[in-house]
């Protein structure tokens, strides 16, 4: 972090209302390059609205934001060059095949050789076998992997992931986590929204809690933990969680994650 101290995402006083509903009441964020930042909040707290504003899909009522050095309000085209959005619902074309989906996005990102890009991504997301099938036949986890793969085309320096694991089974969830960790290792800045506390705990370098339209607390996991009463030591018999049992019985090693880290 020493060579580049300017945050890659800088948000000040973001406000947004839908008619009488005051969704964002002054959101401030600073996200450093190459980190994973988790925006944590319950349903309706304004996470998706924040992401939509930062990805130029909605206009803020007030406030400013700089993304990758570009002003959100006046340089929207440059902002779109710098970002990639993976929305709450997998934004894939059901009628096209997985390979065609990737090829389409590669063409729209004006890449050379879309076919090769598609094949490489199918390979790193363990979708090669399914690449020629219509996406309508994919499982939820495969769709989400394809969705994230589509977001990586053109290597945008910033990726927004809006609730990337909502509705996924535990194995797919772990695969997606591995992919996200791999992204940050490669220098991509990730802004992640989630309602799962363990997801933020597992992935994020810094965590902000969005509540009633403002950031009520922000810091590293360790900093957040210090805000609360010190840990008490209790002796509890360690029972395997149902997730542990599920993964032990069905568990195959996380193929997508291993490949993404290559």
């Amino acid at each position, binding site marked *: 972090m020493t060579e580049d101290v300017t945050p890659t995402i800088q948000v000040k006083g973001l406000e947004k209302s839908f008619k009488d509903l005051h969704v964002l009441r002054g959101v401030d964020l600073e996200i450093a390059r190459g980190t994973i930042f988790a925006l944590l909040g319950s349903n309706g707290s304004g996470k998706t609205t924040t992401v939509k504003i930062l990805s130029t*899909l909605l206009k803020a009522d007030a406030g400013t934001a700089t993304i990758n050095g570009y002003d959100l309000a006046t340089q929207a085209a440059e902002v779109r060059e710098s970002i990639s959005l993976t929305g709450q619902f997998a934004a894939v074309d059901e009628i096209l095949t997985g390979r065609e989906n990737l090829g389409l*996005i590669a063409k*729209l990102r004006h890449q050379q050789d879309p076919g090769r890009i598609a094949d490489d991504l199918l390979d790193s997301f363990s979708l090669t076998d399914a690449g020629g099938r219509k996406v309508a036949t994919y499982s939820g986890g495969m769709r989400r992997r394809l969705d994230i793969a589509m977001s990586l085309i053109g290597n945008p320096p910033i990726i927004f992931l809006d609730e990337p694991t909502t509705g996924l089974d535990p194995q797919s969830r772990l695969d997606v986590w591995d992919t996200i960790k791999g992204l940050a290792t490669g220098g991509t800045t990730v802004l992640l929204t989630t309602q799962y506390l363990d997801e933020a705990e597992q992935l994020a370098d810094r965590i902000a809690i969005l509540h009633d339209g403002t950031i009520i607390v922000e810091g590293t996991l360790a900093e957040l933990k210090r805000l609360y009463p010190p840990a008490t030591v209790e002796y509890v018999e360690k029972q395997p969680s149902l997730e542990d049992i599920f993964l032990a019985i069905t568990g195959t090693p996380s193929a997508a994650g291993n490949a993404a880290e290559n």
Partner: protein
Amino acid sequence: MNKRFFGDVTALLGRSLRHIGRSPDTIITTAITPIAMMLLFVYVLGGAIRTGDHGKYVDYLLPGILLITIASGISYTAYRIFLDMKGGIFERFQSMPIARSSVLWAHVLTSVVANLISVVVVIVVALLMGFRSGAGVLDWLAVAGILLLFTLALTWLAVIPGLTASSVEGASAFSFPLIFLPFISSAFVPTDSMPGPVRAFAEHQPVTSVVNAIRSLLGDQPLGDDLWTALAWCLGLVAVAYLFAMSVYRSKIA
């Protein structure tokens, strides 16, 4: 509009043409209603209809049937835009560095291609039913031009419910009144048999002038003012529908 516009439209056009290629039922269902109407009118009702100096009734009827084909075809355009809006793919495109209007233009051009295929299917069926035309190449080109403008006008109109509808039914239901417009025109029977106010409406609505212009071109008849009236209607509708659709689109994409 920038240098990327054409490349982006081409990529997105390839996508929606694949949709049509993989669900040819959209072409078939578009063509089947007008073909059924054509059969009904020619073989059941047509014997009782007097069309004046025109020869076979199928020759008289075809121009109106082609407009009905287009009016039912554009409901799929609204439907496809609606699906893009509901699924996340519309937002994905909008958050990417592409020419922003290319998403709509791809749907509009797809509509033109799909309607062209449907129109050709209907013409082939009409030929099997005995439709004959002495029109030359230039006349046919003029007919194609009018049908193209008519398709563009209705397609841009269809973009509006596609962008704003809150349900699939809402997105496609708007085309029903458009399908019925030809009934109150010269498409099926000459307007002079209609009572005063109906006749006044029929003679001054766009379908009548478009139908008359196509009928004259195909029948090798003198065109009169119908061609210019039809062109004025079509161009006017294209302009108004385009401007309105684009303003709705801009309000959707922030």
